[in-house]
C-alpha cells in the first residue's frame, strides 16, 4: 500500500501526463466553447444560407469558393476595410503618443498623483456603449461641444453639425476611441518606464545626455517589447471597433460613410440575413489579421531566439 502511494506520488510529481491530465477538463470546455462556433462559422462560409432560406443551416447547399471570390469583388467590403485601416492607423499613434506623454508626466512626483492616476483610468473601465452614447450626445447639434465650447469661443454661428458630415462623424468616432483607450497605453507604458533601472538613467545624465536623448536611446529601447505588445493588443481591438460606431453613426451619415468592418459584417448577418456570406467575410478578415499579427510579433520572436 505504502509502495503504491509512493509510486503515485512520484508519478504525480514528475510525469508530464498528470500535468496534462489535470488541465484536460478546462481544455475540453475551452476548446468546445471556441471550436464549435468557429467550426460552424467555417462550415457556413462555404455554403449559401440565410435564415430566410426556409431550411436549417445544416441543410445548406455547399457553395464552395465562390463566396470568397464574391468578397474580393465587394466594393462595400473594401471600403469598410479601408475605413477600418484608417481608423486603426489614426487611433494607434495618437493613443500611443498621448499615452507616452502622460506616462512621462507621471514619472515625476507631484501632489495628487495617485488620485489623478485613478481618474485617468476611468474611461477604460466604461462600457463601449456608454462611451458611444456619451460622445453621441455631446457632439449633437445642440450638444455641449457646440453650445459650451464652440459657440462661446468662436461666436453664435460657429456650431457644427458633426453627424451629418461623413468626415466629421468619423472624427468624432476617433475622438471617442482615443478618449477611452489612451489610458490603456498610458498604463502599459508607465509601468514599463517605471521599471527602467534608475542607474541607467543616472548614468546617461552623468554623461550629459538630454531628456529627449535619454528617452530615445535608453527608455524607449528598454520598453520596446512592451510597447509592441501594447500596440498589437490595441490594434486588434481597434480593428474590431463596433459599439461606438453603431451607437454614434450607425455607419452613416448617408450610405455607409463611417461603416467599419465589424458593422458591415453585422449588417450582412443581421440586417440582410446574408449569414453565410458574413461568415466568409469574417473568415477572410480573421486570416488577414492573423497574418498581419504574425508579422507584427516577428521582431519579438527573433529577439527571444
Amino acid at each position: 500500500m505504502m509502495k503504491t502511494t509512493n509510486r503515485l506520488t512520484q508519478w504525480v510529481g514528475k510525469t508530464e501526463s498528470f500535468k496534462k491530465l489535470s488541465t484536460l477538463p478546462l481544455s475540453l470546455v475551452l476548446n468546445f466553447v471556441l471550436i464549435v462556433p468557429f467550426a460552424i462559422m467555417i462550415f457556413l462560409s462555404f455554403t449559401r444560407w440565410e435564415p430566410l432560406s426556409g431550411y436549417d443551416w445544416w441543410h445548406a447547399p455547399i457553395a464552395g469558393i465562390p463566396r470568397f471570390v464574391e468578397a474580393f469583388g465587394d466594393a462595400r467590403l473594401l471600403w469598410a476595410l479601408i475605413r477600418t485601416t484608417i481608423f486603426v492607423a489614426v487611433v494607434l499613434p495618437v493613443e500611443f503618443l498621448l499615452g507616452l506623454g502622460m506616462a512621462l508626466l507621471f514619472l515625476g512626483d507631484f501632489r495628487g498623483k495617485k488620485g489623478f492616476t485613478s481618474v485617468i483610468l476611468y474611461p477604460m473601465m466604461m462600457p463601449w456603449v456608454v462611451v458611444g452614447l456619451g460622445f453621441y450626445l455631446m457632439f449633437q447639434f445642440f450638444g455641449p461641444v457646440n453650445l459650451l465650447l464652440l459657440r462661446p469661443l468662436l461666436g453664435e454661428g460657429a456650431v457644427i453639425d458633426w453627424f451629418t458630415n461623413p468626415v466629421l462623424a468619423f472624427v468624432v468616432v476617433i475622438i471617442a476611441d482615443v478618449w477611452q483607450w489612451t489610458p490603456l497605453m498610458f498604463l502599459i507604458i508607465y509601468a514599463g518606464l517605471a521599471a527602467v533601472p534608475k542607474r541607467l538613467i543616472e548614468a546617461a545624465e552623468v554623461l550629459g545626455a538630454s531628456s529627449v536623448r535619454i528617452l530615445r536611446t535608453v527608455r524607449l529601447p528598454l520598453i520596446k517589447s512592451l510597447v509592441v505588445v501594447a500596440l498589437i493588443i490595441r490594434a486588434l481591438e481597434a480593428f474590431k471597433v463596433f459599439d461606438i460606431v453603431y451607437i454614434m453613426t450607425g455607419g452613416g451619415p448617408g450610405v455607409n460613410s463611417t461603416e467599419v468592418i465589424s458593422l458591415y459584417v453585422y449588417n450582412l448577418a443581421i440586417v440582410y440575413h446574408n449569414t453565410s456570406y458574413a461568415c466568409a467575410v469574417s473568415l477572410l478578415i480573421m486570416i488577414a489579421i492573423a497574418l498581419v499579427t504574425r508579422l507584427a510579433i516577428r521582431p519579438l520572436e527573433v529577439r527571444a531566439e
Partner: protein
Amino acid sequence: MSESKEKQVSRRTYLQVAGGTIAGLVVGGALGYLAKPTELVTEVTTVTRSLTETVTVTGTAPPPPPALPGAGVSERALAGAKQLVASGAVPAGATIKLLHVAGSKNNFEPFFADWEANTGTKVEVVTLGGEPDVYTKAFAEATAKTGAFDIITIFSTWKGDAIESGLAKDLEDYYRKYNPEYGSQYPDTTPIEPLGDYTTMYKGRHYAVDLDADVFTLTYRKDLLANPDYASQFKSKFGYDLNVPDTWEQVKDVSKFFTELDLKASDGEKVYGGYFYADAGWAAFTTWLCIFVSKGGILFSPTDMKAMINTQEGIDATQVMADLAPYMHPDALSMDWASLYKRYTEGKAVLTMAWPSLIKWAQDPETSQVVDKSGSALAPGSKVTVGGKEILLKAANNPVNWIGIVSSFSKYPELGYLFWQWITSPVVGADSVSRVGIMDIFRECWFRPPYRETFEKAYTPQFLDVFADCIAHSFPDLMIKGSSEYLDKLTKNVNAACVKAKTARAAMDDTAKDWEAITDRLGRDAQLDAWKSFIPLYPSDVQDVWKAKGYLS
C-alpha cells in the same frame, strides 16, 4: 544564429501556418457540419413542413372548430387560458416572456397583474434598446431556436422575414378556435381594414395580431399657423395664404418661413419650420415614401419587379427632402425617431409628420409644452397630371405598424396567443392603447361611443376625425421578404441626398442598383408575386395614377 537559419525557421513556420490554416478550414468545415444539433432535425423539419402545408392548403381550409364560448374577445381569451391551465397543458404559474422595445412598456405592463389574477399565469416583459435591437434579437432567435421569448412585438415590415425564417408561428388555428373578431363580419369590433388584414396576414393565413395603426399624419402648431402677424408676413413673402400645407412644395415654403423667422422655444433654442424623418438609422424612408407615392411613383414594376425608384418621381421626392433639409431641425438628419417626439413637444418644430402616438405625447402635460396647440391633417400631397387634368394626389403610408407574433419555439404558444388576444381586445385594448406609448388606435369601435371619449382625451377629437381620413388614403409599408434590406438601402441613400453627400439622382440610381441585386438574390419571381399582392392595397386614386402613367395595366 545566422540570418539564414532565422529565415529557414521563419519559412517553416509560415508553411506550418499556411498548411494549418487550410487543414483547419477543411476540418473546421467538417466539424461545423457535424456540430448540427441532430436532436433538433426531426422537430425542425416538422416546422418547415407545416409552413409548406400552410401555403398549399390555402383555400381548402378545414371547417373551423367551434369557437370557445364567451361574450367577447377578451372573455374568450381568458376562458381559453384558464382551460389550458385546468387541462394541464400549461402549468399554473407559467410565465410568458414578451420581447418588446424599451421605453414603451406602458401599453402592456400595467395589465399584467389583471392577466395573472384571471388566469394564474404570468407575463414578463423583456425590453431591448431600440427597434434595431429587437430586430437583432428576434432574428437571432429565429436561428438559435432557444424559446427564450414566447411572444414578440415586431414591425409589420419584418413580418415576411419573421415568417420565412420560421420565427412567427402560424396562428390560423388559434384564430378559428378563439375568434379575435377580425374581418368585415365583425363591424363593431374588427381592426380597421384593410390595415388589420395586411399587417397580420401572409399568403392568406394569420401570423400576427394587430397592435397598432400607424398611418402618418401631418402634425402642426395651430397657434403659430393661425397667428395673424405671421400670416401677413408669409403672404407678402410667398404670395399666398399661410395655411396647413396641402402640397410638399407648400411644406417647403412654410418650413422656410418659420425657420427664417428665428423664433425661440421656452429654453431659448431655435424653433425650426419642419422636422421630417431623414436620418440614416432607419426612418428616412418613411417621409420619402409619402412624397414618392403622392407623386405617382411605384416602388417596383408589377410586370418584372424592376426597381422603379429611380424614375422621375423618385428623384423628385428625394429632391424635395434635400430641399427641405436646411429648414428642418438638425436632429432630423442624425437622431432617431424619438427625437422628433421630443423636439416637437419642446416646441422646436412647426410642421412634422409622424405616427399617431405623437399627438398622445403632445397632449401629455407631463412632457409636452405644446398641449392643445397641435392640429392634425392628412399628409401633404403633390400635383400630378392624369389625362391632361391636374389633380392633387395625397397618400399617407402606414410605416412600421407594430404587430404581435408568437414564437414558433415558444413552450406555451397557445397561451402566448391568448395573451395577445386579451391585451388587444376591444375592451382591454382600449385602456392599453389609449395610454401614452407607441401603440395606436387600431379598432373601428374605438372611434365610436362608448370608447370614443377615452380616445378623444388621448388624441384630441380633431385628430380622431382626421385619422379616419388618413387611413382611407393610406398604403402599406413594404412587407415582402427582404423588406428590411430594401428599406435600409433606401433610407441610407435618402439621407445621403439630404446631407448633400449625393445628388438626388445618384442616390436613387444607387438604390435601384442595390434593390435589383437584392431581388435577384431572393428570387425575382417570388418577390414579384409578393409585391403584386400588395398593389391592390394602395388607394384607388394612386392606382388610377399608376394606370394613367402606364405603370399598371
